[in-house]
């Protein structure tokens, strides 16, 4: 049958139009990717990863907003002002002391003739190995209401549970962030500035104020933000020391099954966190501006003279308080535990739970990190940048909020997995994937894009290039990142507490529960095991800064 001419013309028209739309779209698509779009598989994995990172958090946000005006007003009237005061004052004071201690120690070990400075350089980074809640437990053991000091003197010297107690313990275990980053900046510092300032006739005190400190400011800022974000997100330490910040309040609301209140408090905390991250982005901008070329010259060491003794004592005291004392307390209680035979079937069961869930999370992270990082590096576009940023979302946010989002999500959409280890593993992946991504990014930056092109030209498709060239070359970095994720997941507390299925207690959970009930002899061996495991990725972590 012949079609009517008009119909035929219509058909031709639509075909032409379709072709035009196809061309317009492919033009748009190419433009979006600057002429270099990624393969379908790569794009899909990356997009899904970014989405998976975002969904639980946005769910918390939506739930919080939907909480209703009444609940909001009620909370704004009662709890939020106190929580804001508690959280912000703690964050600011701890960050301040962390900067003072971190910066002074960094300067001492890098730029002065402090005896044994090479050894001090890594000794003073060791507090990073000790999970802050473990540190808190050891100080409660010493100074708590039923602690050793009371046993010796008949009464505790002071109340460890008050604001300054919390500040002290938090500072001891967070100063290494500032210390490590400023040490690295001091090592890179271009001596010419300092010499130019000295040549201009300034005394060293003025040189430091006018030429060293301003150039270190971005590094100090970066370290300070890490400390601040840690304090905002910490749950184990503040809860252990009975100090209520947002995270602790959210945790207890969830314990009371008041998820709306938990979501509302989470929204406020997310906003505060975003504010801090925004501040960090600002310091980064400046960092680019200040970026200085390093000199290969060894900086002349500043002679301390008679200050040597007092400053050596200062470094020793910090090391003692942050590393030696906690480890000694743990060693004592672990030996008590060992003689009582606490390392039994049960203990290894907890260890296996930790190992299993942390191991799964680190495997998943190793698998997901490469596509996201690879796409960002090799197919730059607004899409890959957004996916990369999304993947970092879980990093900055407290574990309790991640857990809350996961509870909402699985309850609503994946109920058959509710109450399984999948929830805990998902939380670990969301929280720690960025650690793996950083490692993968560092490894990938060593691989020239020319190698990709050489492989393409040799007849391999993009996904084959990843398998045959990229993967073999970045595997060490991926594994280092995986180890980091593994250790972080082993130590993770709040999300595990909230999400663990019945009977799936981890070492971290047992440490927390046992210590809360005063069973230090069972908590201490587990804590020592975690600290020992943390040594594995430490080498890599130190070289990162």
């Amino acid at each position, binding site marked *: 049958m012949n079609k009517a001419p008009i119909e035929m013309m219509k058909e031709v028209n639509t075909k032409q139009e379709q072709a035009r739309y196809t061309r317009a779209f492919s033009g748009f698509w190419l433009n979006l990717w600057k002429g270099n779009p990624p393969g379908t598989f790569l794009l899909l994995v990356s997009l899904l990863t970014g989405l998976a990172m975002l969904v639980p958090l946005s769910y918390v946000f939506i739930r919080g907003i939907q909480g209703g005006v009444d609940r909001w007003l009620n909370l704004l009237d009662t709890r939020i002002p106190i929580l804001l005061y508690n959280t912000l004052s703690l964050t600011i004071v701890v960050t301040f002391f962390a900067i003072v201690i971190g910066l002074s120690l960094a300067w001492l070990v890098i730029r002065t003739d402090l005896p044994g400075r090479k050894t001090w350089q890594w000794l003073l980074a060791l507090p990073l190995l000790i999970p802050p809640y473990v540190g808190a437990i050891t100080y409660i053991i010493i100074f708590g209401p039923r602690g050793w000091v009371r046993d010796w003197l008949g009464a505790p010297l002071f109340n460890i549970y008050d604001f300054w107690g919390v500040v002290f313990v938090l500072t001891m275990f967070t100063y290494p962030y500032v210390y490590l980053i400023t040490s690295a900046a001091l090592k890179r510092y271009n001596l010419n500035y300092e010499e130019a300032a000295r040549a201009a006739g300034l005394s060293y005190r003025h040189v430091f104020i006018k030429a060293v400190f301003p150039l270190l400011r971005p590094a100090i800022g970066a370290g300070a933000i890490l400390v601040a974000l840690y304090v905002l997100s910490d749950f184990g330490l503040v809860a252990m020391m009975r100090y209520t910040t947002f995270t602790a309040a959210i945790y207890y609301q969830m314990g009371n099954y008041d998820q709306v209140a938990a979501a509302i408090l989470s929204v406020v905390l997310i906003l505060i966190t975003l504010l801090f991250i925004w501040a960090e982005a600002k310091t980064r901008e400046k960092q680019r501006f200040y970026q200085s070329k390093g000199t290969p010259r060894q900086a002349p060491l500043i002679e301390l003279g008679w200050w040597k003794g007092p400053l050596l004592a200062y470094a020793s005291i910090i090391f003692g308080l942050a590393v030696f004392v906690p480890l000694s307390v743990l060693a004592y209680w672990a030996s008590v535990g060992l003689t009582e035979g606490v390392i039994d079937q049960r203990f290894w069961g907890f260890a296996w739970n930790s190992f299993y869930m942390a191991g799964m999370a680190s495997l998943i992270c190793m698998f997901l990190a490469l596509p996201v990082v690879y796409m960002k590096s090799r197919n730059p576009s607004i899409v890959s940048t957004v996916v990369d940023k999304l993947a970092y979302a879980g990093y900055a946010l407290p574990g309790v909020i991640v857990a809350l989002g996961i509870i909402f999500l699985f309850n609503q959409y994946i109920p058959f997995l509710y109450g399984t280890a999948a929830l805990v593993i998902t939380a670990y992946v969301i929280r720690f994937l960025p650690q793996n991504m950083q490692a993968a990014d560092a490894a990938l930056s060593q691989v020239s894009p020319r190698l990709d*092109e050489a492989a393409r030209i040799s007849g391999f498709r993009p996904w084959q290039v990843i398998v045959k060239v990229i993967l073999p070359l970045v595997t060490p970095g991926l594994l280092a990142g995986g180890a980091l994720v593994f250790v972080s997941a082993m130590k993770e507390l709040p999300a595990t507490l909230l999400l663990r299925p019945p009977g799936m207690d981890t070492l971290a959970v047992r440490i927390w529960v046992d210590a809360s009930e005063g069973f230090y002899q069972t908590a201490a061996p587990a804590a020592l095991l975690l600290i020992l495991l943390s040594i594995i990725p430490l080498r890599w972590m130190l070289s990162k800064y």
Partner: protein
Amino acid sequence: MFDIELLSVTKKYAGTEKAAVQGLCLSVEKGQILTLLGPSGCGKTTTLRLIAGFERPDQGKITLRDRVVSHRDSWIPPEKRDIGMVFQDYALFPHLNVIDNVGFGYRGTDKKGRVQEVLQVVNLQGFEKRFPHELSGGQQQRVALARALARKPVVILLDEPFSNLDAELRVQMRVEVKEIIKDAGATAVFVTHDQKDALAISDRIVVMKDGVIQQSGTPREIYQYPETPFVATFVGQSNLLPGQIGDDGQSVITEIGQVPCNHTHNLARGEKCYISIRPDSLEVDPEGSIVGKVKQWTYTGESIDAVVDTVTQKGTNQELLVHIHPEKIVQQGEILRFKVLPNFVAVLRSDREFS
């Protein structure tokens, strides 16, 4: 028969004002070595990457041995273009030894034999088990070349392959690479900013500037008869003088006198033009017509590079760059007479922009 054809290819990078390559037309005959020569940012590397398929042109058509690889609606990705490439940093896979690098991507059943064959061609037998970091720069270069040759590609692209080599090795590798490519009967496109590389290795040279072809020709044509002031000064040194074609049609009348030249681009008598005189084509001669005072001189061993001040017919000063035979002893301020050897004098059209 052309192995490579580019037809009015234009490429503009996102976020830039000017096109990196503008309306480029280029064709390379089978078995030829073509060099894209130009300063950095002239679009030569972009052209190479367009041929390889690492960049997509905004307009134009690219054909590789009768197969359209890039046109408005057709696009063939790099892995299917059948191309061999030698990268500036060689891009040898650090996790593979020489055999696996050379055989990378070789699909035939005779992989082992073919790898041995190309290793013989590049003279690298005995290095099969070494890894890239265990090889010298020249050896890495040869592995990269072997890898590019192994799959018997339609064309071989070389991106500044000599820039990472020291001067002595560079001279040696120029000869070797040319021989290897010729023996393999391959068609090659080669990118460089070094005129000596280009003159030594090419059958044809294409000089580019700002994304546009300035001149294309054999090395001799490019050096002896540059068509634009840019080519004359970029490929070798030259003295550029304005003038007009003499009445005999075999010379140019300039401010320093009438200069004979063999090649005048068929410009009409009296027509305005530029003349390019290479420093080598000015010879010290007591009978010469050009008189000048030595302003400064540098002894280089191969010659004496001198700047000579001459007085033009108008009475103004004109500096000339002259290469004097190294045996001669010159003094600053000395007055010398020169004559012009007609072979290395080129007439440039004055309608081409002076740069």
